């Protein structure tokens, strides 16, 4: 854990959508490793590094709530951006049309707080000018100042995440002393391999989830 960081994250709402219930959205009980990776990448990422989430600490109790939202039912058809680029036309997507709307129910999380423990590895894209210390310092500096490339979110863009670099002691979880089986959870997506989703059996011990490495055998078992 030489280059490890700890980031405390909290927010009013979160929705880490389960793939099987992504239409009428239902959230996972806790943050998924890929969502944690997304938050880290929002703060600092370069092709030279790859974030690996080591642990997710769940600090507040898991609470669900229901909302209904009006969403759209179609995506921008793929040819549109292509022709827009070619003909230098503006790209627009009309959602005024009532038939393009869908009311969808979401079961989401309220009042969440997590600590992400993670480290990064240098990738093949790392050049001579890249070294671990440099990227670690960049991340630390950015996180301390509250800088980010794009607003870190708790699962959905609508639910922004507050964050803080954790340098003090780890806060205690409300699940300390308990263990809980959370079932199979999305670990990440194998982008190199036809975007295959990878799942792992999430066990929460003392409020801590330890995801396996995406390359580990148990994921594919």
């Amino acid at each position: 854990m030489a280059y490890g960081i700890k980031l405390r994250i909290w927010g009013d709402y979160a929705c880490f959508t389960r793939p099987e219930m992504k239409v009428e959205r239902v959230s996972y009980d806790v943050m998924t490793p890929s969502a944690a990776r997304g938050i880290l990448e929002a703060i600092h990422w370069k092709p030279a590094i790859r974030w690996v989430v080591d642990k997710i600490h769940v600090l507040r109790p898991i609470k669900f709530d229901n909302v209904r939202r009006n969403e759209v039912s179609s995506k921008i058809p793929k040819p549109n951006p292509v022709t827009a680029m070619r003909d230098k036309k503006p790209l627009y997507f009309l959602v005024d049309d009532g038939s393009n709307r869908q009311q969808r129910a979401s079961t989401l999380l309220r009042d969440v707080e997590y600590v992400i423990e993670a480290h990064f590895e240098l990738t093949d894209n790392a050049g001579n000018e890249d070294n671990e210390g440099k990227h670690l310092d960049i991340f630390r500096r950015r996180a301390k100042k509250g800088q980010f490339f794009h607003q870190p979110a708790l699962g959905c863009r609508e639910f922004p995440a507050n964050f803080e670099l954790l340098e003090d002691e780890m806060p205690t979880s409300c699940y300390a002393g308990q263990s809980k089986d959370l079932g199979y959870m999305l670990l990440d997506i194998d982008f190199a391999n036809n975007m295959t989703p990878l799942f792992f059996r999430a066990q929460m011990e003392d409020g801590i989830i330890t995801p396996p490495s995406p390359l580990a055998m148990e994921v594919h078992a």
Partner: protein
Amino acid sequence: MMLHALNEYYQRMVEDHDSRMPPYGTSIENISFALVLDEDGSVKAIEDLRELNGNKLHPRKMPVPAAEKKASGIKANFLWDATNYVLGFDDKGKQERADRCHEAFIEQLKKYCDVSDPGLKAVLKFLENGHSKDVANREDWPDICGSNLVFRLDGVPGFVHDRSAARESWSACLADKEQGNTSQCLITGRKRPIARLHPSIKGVRGAQSSGASIVSFNLSAFESYGKQQSFNAPISQEAAFSYTTALSSLLALDSRQKITIGDTTYVFWAKKAIEAEGFLADLFDPPSEDTQKPTEQDDQISTRNIHGLLKAISDGRKPSDFMPELNEDVSFYILGLAPNAARLSIRFWQETSLGELLETVGRHYRELNLVQQFDSEPEFPSLWRLLVQTATLGKSENISPVLAGGLTRAMLTGQPYPQNLLPVVLDRIRAEHNVTYFRAALLKAYLLRNTRMEEVPVSFDPERTDQPYLLGRLFAVIEKAQEEAVPGANATVKDRYLASAAATPSLVFHLLLKNQTNHIAKLRKDQEKKGRAVYLERLTQDIIGLFDNYPKTQSPEQQGLFMIGYYHQRKDFFTKKTQEG
């Protein structure tokens, strides 16, 4: 979580042979008739499989090779289907489509059926020789048309699709269908062929009768990473079958493990087989002890048991004190489903232990506990009875789904009652000028759980000095004086002033008290009612003496307490004073 738990439930039930859970590759379908075939394929008879239920004939539910998911496309089921597939005639007059359906049905059978088996051979001969016209010319054709048919070989017990040769053919057919995308299943974690579509789930109130899906991707906006349909959420075909079959059996018509509240259908099950699975429905909807007809002995015992259990848990005792055999540690699952545009949305999901669940339900009933207005009213009102009291005209269809969901959630999880409960109940009281037992109980529960109020009395409390409570009592006394002085008045003070007295006491009470003086004066002139006049006047003075002035307005919480005070005082007028003297 939920799908995982359903999958486990299926595995548990399949091992229990009494449960009649269909094995993988079959499904329980509604079948109306069996074509009884001779070995040469001619129709011997048509057997009516329907069962009489009440005075209506219902199709029989029986296991058959698993149904295809049908939308607008043509997909034949194996060795059973509706008449347009089996015979090539439908009840919609679309002959051209029926012909194509029939062809698809024959083609599938030809491809997989082993003709050395007499049963399958007879079916193929029946189809090839065009015997289906024989059926269409029968007198009872209007009955048969459009229903689901199976085959039976004359003189042989059982149906053709149950013959071992048919089963082998079906598993070959199934194996072909399964081919395709393999990926890691998100329920079992194993690498298996993934289901593109999941079987439909029937039995959720308000959803399409042909069934709806939990896992479905019926619009492009729901799809990600260029994946189609259910490949967006890789679930193996076996797991998809297991969870839908388990859910369907929980949702079946005669299931003891489901209940409908508002627009949501709730099902519940335990991780292990326990007795409580059978009676949880009664906790939501306690059977009334008084209206119990002297039917079966068993029923009466279980009713008494549930009342005993409810009594125990609402008194705050441990459920195992009452039922020692109850295993409180068993995990319990509750799932609430509501339809939304051909899909099912998860309205509620809870994983808890039986002991915890009973405790929160007990707390709910403890908070609701209030002296009944009439003896016929239930001690443990069901959620439906409570919700109807918040609806216009007392009709179920006017119940607000948000309120119904919130109240159920509050009952099962111990969370606060929905914020809009208080205004809705006050609105109903304002509109109907009536504080019923159920409404007063709801107000009490709300005040106890959602506000900082530490105590709201169960029955009339003459010692209580909260001003809203006293004002409520005072209003009841004023109403009583009018009732006795002017019996049968068209519009009483309650009809006119109940709501405004609660909301703006200082504006209304002066007027009411002036009127009351007249009513009491009238009573005093009557020799027989003189005593009542003295009693009511003294009671009024006693109550007024406990506070200084009338508040200009009262908050909704105070209005709630006002209504409870009114309810208690009024109830007190009609209670025989046994301990007096």
